[in-house]
């Protein structure tokens, strides 16, 4: 099995890659921008699990390059985990459209561009798994991060459509909805300890959802219920809340 990790420098993605290498002895293809870091991760996985690992440069924002990037992969992946993303700065994004665009294009446009290429390959092979990491922020817009949230929301809709399309070809699409995870993205934020997962725990949830062929998984499970409540609040009330 070969697992392609897009945005492999994400702490969550890396922890998932370790699960695949450890528990399934899968070969790993790490793809991200920061190559200094990727090469260390490559050594880490090889040293720990003795599997084949390679690092490839990948920039989600450079859609032009995606076809060549995928063409260059040999062997082609059996599982693709898409985990890149930027949270960005909401206030900056309100004031400067270029900042907003970067959030939207990384989390949504870039994801669509690369996953369409992967989907075409999996569709003809009639096998494969696509794991897309969204966010609970994509389930309801909030003033503190709605630009990011809307891009994630679009991505969630995209994934459900992709699942619908690829189902008949035997391709599995898994949507991941993380709540709070203690990673580089959330460093310095005051997250509620009891609701915050470590990347390894989130990775455990994602890996077992993969094995069980689930469609959607929240990490951790309680976020499903938190979001049920948040989604049930009527809009006239929701707009008054400061969340």
């Amino acid at each position, binding site marked *: 099995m070969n697992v392609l990790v897009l945005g492999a420098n994400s702490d969550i993605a890396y922890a998932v890659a370790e699960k695949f290498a450890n528990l399934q002895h899968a070969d790993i293809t790490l793809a991200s921008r920061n190559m*200094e*870091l990727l090469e*260390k991760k490559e*050594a880490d996985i090889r*040293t720990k699990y003795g599997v084949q690992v390679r690092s490839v440069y990948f920039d989600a924002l450079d859609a032009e390059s995606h076809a060549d990037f995928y063409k260059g992969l040999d062997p082609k992946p059996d599982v693709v985990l898409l985990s890149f993303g930027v949270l960005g700065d909401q206030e900056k994004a309100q004031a400067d459209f270029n900042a907003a665009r970067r959030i939207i294009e990384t989390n949504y446009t870039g994801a669509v561009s690369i996953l369409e290429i992967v989907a075409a390959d999996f569709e003809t092979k009639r096998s494969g798994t696509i794991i897309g990491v969204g966010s609970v922020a994509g389930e309801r817009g909030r003033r503190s991060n709605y630009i990011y949230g809307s891009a994630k929301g679009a991505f969630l809709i995209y994934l459900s459509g992709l699942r619908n399309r690829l189902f008949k070809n035997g391709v599995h699409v898994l949507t991941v909805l993380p709540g709070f995870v203690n990673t580089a993205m959330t460093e*310095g934020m005051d997250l509620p300890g009891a609701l915050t997962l470590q990347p390894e725990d989130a990775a455990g949830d994602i890996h077992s959802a993969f094995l069980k062929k689930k469609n959607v998984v929240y990490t951790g499970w309680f976020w499903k219920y938190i979001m049920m409540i948040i989604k049930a609040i009527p809009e006239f009330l929701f707009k008054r809340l400061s969340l």
Partner: protein
Amino acid sequence: MKLSGWGNYPRIECRGQSFETVSELRKMFAEALETIPRGMGKSYGDSALADHVIFTRRFNKMLDFDRETGILTCESGATLSAVLDIFLPEGWFLSITPGVKSISVGGAVAADVHGKNHHRAGCFSECVIFLDLMLPDGRIMRCSRSENQDLFRATCGGMGLTGMILNAAIKLQPVASSSIDETIVRCSNLDAIFDAFDQYDKTAYSVAWIDCLAGGSRMGRSILMAGDHSNSGPLDPPRAPGLSVPFDLPGLCLNTWSVKLFNELYYRKSPSRPEHRVVSIDSFFYPLDGIGRWNRLYGKNGFTQYQLILPPEAGKKGLRRILHRIAESGAGSFLAVLKLMGPQNNNLLSFPMAGYTLALDFKIEKKLFPLLDELDNIVIDHGGRLYPAKDVRMTRSVFQKGYPKWKRFVQLREKYGLSNKINSLQSKRLGI
């Protein structure tokens, strides 16, 4: 964020940052006014506490393992338990391990930790082939017994005060199985346990649980646990973490009476004649790691560990005085451990030296610190010292008397531009 050591005392507001690449760290060093490295925060007191701390948690990659020599090169945030998870099933074990595995390699070097085999194998630095150290100005120094020796001798045991340990090459030992052949010896008083340590001197590992509340003729009654790696048996992976204590228990749960009761039961349940058994590496080395966050048992005011060492001959007298004073005070220590240590090494601030080390956990309460001040005097009078990795309250003068090389350490800090850049609450208190 609020941070504390394992003892949950003191608990202070800190700013913490983590890094994953050398360039990120270099930038943090340049921007921070003053900072201290922090590994897994398992030192008991204020060694890894300051207004600004740099976490090594994400700087934890394993870079190379040589299956011929057993030499592992890894980043300092890698934990000992990650090393065991990967390499124990392949037949490799740490050459030196403390009684806890959820610590970082960097923390093991910085405290130059010791284990149950100190009498034969020495401190953690014995298995360190080389270190890469980043100074606050961003320079990276390779340190070993032959290169930048002054920095190597200061960094092993230097409590993070010489800069950030980036990578370490450590030598693992081959083992035939993941089991330990253990012998348990019940000793009815202090003389009996001193003898037992001598008798089991050839055994690779030894440590004793001691009842610090027993007085009179039973003073120092103990249970010695000695062990060697089994020559046969399976190579099982380490155990997964167990249940955790979910919240701070009321401090009342641990008092003189509960400790007395526990000690009595524990002593009695052990066999009256030496007994052999085969146990797992986890239960022999890391009995407490089975219960996550057991530090909460001590209540929200926290606790501290008082670990002292005394040279062998004067030490026997000194230990009697100390145990007498503790039994008299009734300050119950749930966990009390005694061990015979081997010779001291050449590092500037490493704690171990030939003699007996005693470690006692105490709940933080008003009457505790005056008692510990009294014990300090006994320790110093008998030529002993305290372990900085456990300490949260020793005075400058007690430290300086125990560690005569402290001045060289301070000079080295000045020479490499560390004095004003890298500091913990502890280094300020101790004046180093």
